């Protein structure tokens, strides 16, 4: 066994580790993306029929989404110290984004749809950033949902909530399925 052969084998190991991390991430987190797709579809449809209760509807459905996400994450909680550290950093990154969203929402004021689109873009930007490290599918999905949300918002359509349910919620649902079946 020469040093060059050892170097080649270590390179092969590194390549397999990268591919495994990327695909395991898709398979493990795909169900969470699907869950949020379902939450968005139901919440947007509910907002269409009960526009006066939009605030409460989102409060309830976001709570359901976060509880479901926490449950799904428990299934795949890391048993490796470095993975746990990464998990903690990601959790703090999420908290920073939430704080930023809350401040931006306060500054925007009582403009329901603008705030809704802001939160959508914020979460989907996080998906896009995640994709820079963990696989292109996250970036593609985030960019598509942001584009659809902005189109729906600026078109001032009376069907806004239904467009968001079908395109953004449906997009997440399909995107989650795309990740779960990544090969």
């Amino acid at each position, binding site marked *: *066994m020469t*040093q060059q052969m*050892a*170097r080649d*084998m*270590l390179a*092969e*190991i590194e390549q*397999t*580790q990268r*591919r*495994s*991390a990327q*695909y*395991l991430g898709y*398979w493990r987190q795909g169900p969470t993306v699907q869950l949020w797709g379902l939450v968005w579809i139901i919440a947007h449809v509910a907002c269409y029929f009960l526009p006066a209760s939009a605030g409460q509807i989102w409060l309830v459905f976001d709570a359901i989404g976060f509880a479901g996400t926490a449950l799904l994450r428990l299934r*795949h909680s*890391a*048993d*490796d110290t470095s993975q746990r550290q990464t998990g903690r950093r990601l959790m703090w990154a999420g908290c920073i984004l939430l704080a930023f969203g809350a401040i931006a929402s306060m500054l925007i004021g009582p403009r329901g749809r603008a705030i809704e689109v802001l939160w959508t873009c914020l979460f989907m930007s996080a998906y896009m950033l995640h994709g820079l490290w963990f696989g292109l599918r996250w970036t593609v999905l985030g960019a598509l949902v942001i584009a659809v949300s902005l189109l729906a918002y600026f078109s001032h359509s009376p069907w806004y909530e239904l467009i968001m349910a079908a395109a953004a919620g449906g997009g997440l649902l399909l995107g989650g399925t795309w990740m779960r079946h*990544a*090969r």
Partner: protein
Amino acid sequence: MNGLDEVIHQSTRLRMMTALHALKKDEWIEFVHLKSLINASDGNLGAHLDTLARAGYVEIDKQIVGKKPLTRIRTTTAGRAAYRHHVAQLRSLLDM
């Protein structure tokens, strides 16, 4: 062979053990998923899995789920230890 593990040393088996080591301890992976992680054919993967199982490095679980066969694989404690030792030996070769 320089303290290297002869079972794991073969290229496909090395990739298989690397992919399996990326899972949590005691976590199973389906045959089709492992196949796509290492880009191997069914026959090739099956033959190398048998070799790893005979060495006691992996466990294979075969079930029938909804009339379809489901094969799952996971590493054993001995398999994870052997893999880590093998990688450490490869790294030590670079330091010589």
